[in-house]
């Protein structure tokens, strides 16, 4: 148990922080601990949690994805066209939306892997493109989503929010994939040391494509879930998801230098961010002051993540 805690120290600390914040949130909320409050919290948290997982996959292989928000916006907008009508057309729509997400991720991956462009530049550009397509498709928020499906996915069953169940299922599947499969171990290996991984015969390029593709897939899940929660397609949501997803992975103990961290950490980071912003909403802080404090929290999170700097053995390692 102790070794487990030590090995997962970052996640453990983040989880403790989340519990404290959540208790504070419940205490401050006018309606207290109720299915309604928890469900709203869980739905919001799931949105950001999925975005953070999408970001995690790219960060795991030493990248950073500035297009996560745009992929979410694009798939959300596509969902507002496709996720209605007969069950068959909804199912088909779902497949298309997820395929678009994977395609977006692969575009990023191909540019990074075969084009040799830095991830930050690639995703800045593709983010503009994906977001631009979303804007062309739906210049103003609108569209319609099948309400029965939305209700089924955003309410609670027996006091447990469906969104929480979805998030847990996604996490369990991903954890097994990452910890217990050849592909997962390969991803961690190339994130930790790309040269060694290559010299050991791992197919580094293909594995990176898997990471970017998975990122796109999870971003599409997030976009779909935005459709379910908001019942519209909104092309303007991209920036906040991108920024918050990066902050969430950092808060959750995922190293921006690659190879360290887990999707659980990313989700915990996302939930912390969500709880803090909800706390601010109910604490009577003027709404105009909120972006300032959110920025402050992000800066603190990133600074804490950079504390690893003090643990390097050789200063030169910092400049690699």
């Amino acid at each position: 148990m102790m070794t487990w805690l030590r090995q997962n120290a970052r996640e453990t600390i983040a989880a403790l922080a989340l519990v404290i914040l959540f208790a504070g949130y419940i205490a401050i909320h006018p309606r207290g601990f109720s299915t309604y409050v928890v469900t709203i919290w869980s739905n919001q948290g799931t949105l950001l949690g999925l975005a953070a997982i999408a970001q995690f996959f790219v960060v795991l292989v030493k990248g950073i994805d500035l297009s996560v928000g745009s992929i979410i916006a694009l798939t959300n907008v596509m969902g507002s066209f496709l996720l209605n009508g007969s069950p068959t057309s909804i199912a088909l729509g779902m497949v298309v939306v997820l395929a678009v997400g994977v395609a977006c991720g692969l575009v990023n991956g191909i540019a990074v892997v075969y084009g040799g462009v830095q991830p930050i530049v690639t995703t800045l550009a593709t983010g503009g493109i994906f977001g631009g397509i979303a804007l062309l498709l739906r210049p103003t928020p609108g569209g319609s989503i099948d309400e029965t499906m939305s209700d089924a996915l955003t309410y609670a069953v027996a006091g447990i929010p469906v969104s929480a169940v979805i998030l847990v299922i996604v996490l369990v599947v991903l954890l097994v994939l990452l910890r217990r499969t050849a592909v997962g171990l390969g991803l961690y290996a190339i994130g930790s040391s790309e040269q060694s991984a290559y010299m050991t015969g791992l197919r580094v390029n293909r594995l990176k494509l898997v990471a970017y593709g998975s990122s796109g897939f999870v971003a599409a899940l997030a976009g779909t879930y935005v459709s379910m929660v908001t019942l519209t397609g909104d092309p303007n949501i991209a920036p906040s998801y991108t920024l918050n997803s990066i902050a969430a992975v950092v808060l959750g103990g995922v190293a921006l230098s690659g190879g360290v961290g887990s999707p659980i950490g990313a989700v915990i980071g996302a939930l912390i961010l969500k709880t803090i912003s909800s706390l601010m909403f109910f604490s009577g802080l003027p709404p105009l002051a909120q972006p300032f404090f959110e920025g402050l929290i992000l800066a603190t999170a990133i600074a804490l993540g950079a504390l690893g700097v003090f643990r390097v053995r050789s200063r030169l390692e910092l400049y690699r």
Partner: protein
Amino acid sequence: MVEAKTSTSQNAIVAMQRISKSFGANRVLSDISFEVMAGETHALLGENGAGKSTLMKILMGAYRTDEGRILFAGEDVTALSLRERIDRGIAMIFQELSVLPNRSVAENLFILREPLAFGLRVDARTMVRDAQALIERYAFSLDASARVGDLAFAQRQMVEILKAISRGAKLLVMDEPTSSLTIHEEETLFRTIGQLKQNGIGIVYISHRMADVLRLSDRISIIKDGRLVGPLDPSKTSIENIAAMMSRPKGESPLPTAAAPAKRPPATPVGTPALEVRDLATSRKLSDISLSIDPGEIVGLAGLVGSGRSTLGKALFGILSDVSGHITVAGEPVRPGSVSRAIAAGVALVPEDRRLEGLVGGRSIEENLALPRLSDFSLAGRFGPMAKARITALFRQYRDDLNILCRGPLQKAQELSGGNQQKIVFAKWLAMKPKLLILDEPTSGVDVNAKRDMRELVRRTASEGVAVLLISSELEELLDLSDRILVMAQGRITRRIACAHDETGLRALLQAEAARQTSARAQGVAA
């Protein structure tokens, strides 16, 4: 700070007196005295790990000496920091140059102390003029306004040297300065060194190439097992002489012998060789490489730094993309240029830089062991779950087999000592049942006991029918392990010798080969 003026040596720029240094229980330098005069080139020779770089780090102030003191221009600098010593005029020219490629020569020379016009704006014209004056003073062939990135390596080296001198360096330490130079550029460097000497600058010249050292230096000192031999007068010595001084007497192994090393029956050629290479070449470094290794045979690859030994290892392992020629592993042709193809054919490489290339340091030991063949542990395809128990079993087997000291299968690989890390790299390839094992400096940076274990392991691996290509700068090790030795110089295999040679003979031979190839090339350039 105590300032002690001494008169031990007239004109000595630097005098290191009775220096000793230990790391833990390991004594790396004992009672070394080393001097450089103004305008003198004092060469420092020694095998890898003999203590040259430790001595230089003590000189620079990166390490503190345990005993003795260091005088610089007559002043005791033993207690000063690296920064303060640089300010006083000790400079080191590294193999990795610290010039800024996207700036001009002048900007590089005057970085952080650019001449200012009106105390604000950088006065570019004055800067270029001053730079050109400096270049002319030392008669270097450089253009002050050229972009450094466009220059040849030797000229970048000049910029680095000028930068140090213009900041007041009186002593330059050059560590293997010829290692990245072409033949033509070497001549330029030697002229540069001549100019520096005329200007009264002292030089410590570290090199493996004895022919260069004999030609260039005024005095030669050798570090062997942490002790200094010399200084010698180059006009009164020879390569053979120096080689003998650097070698240990025959039969005297530096390694503790726990049990008598298992005598291996010499490999008997059986049908197909494990490795056969014909006409292998790369666009820049290697040419005309042909060799063959039988299963169970250990072939040593000897040569000086820069002779192309590691490059050959990398070419065989598929790392280099510009390899031409034919590689056949156990009768099956392997198209060069892909690591995964090489591994699939049964080639394994234990790289020299194990921390960067051999291990995934941040991951667990058992993961590192399983990494080369992850899909073998998968229960269902690439995305299927892994048989965790089988990976742990693999770990147990090799921990016991290779005597790996660790806390458990989940310990991070980077937390292990050098020797144990090397065993992990070894084990991960042994688990692949390779046909050819390439070892690049397998015992560098590991302690003596780990060295003994590694040698035993290499012998055992070969006796199980694996062909071994051993690259090592430790000649004693090469002679101890190899069935026969190939000598490389300037990217070619120039000699094939049976293992009858003693260390001195082999050392002298390597130097002679390097010198012969160098002069052959130089004539080729001139013609």
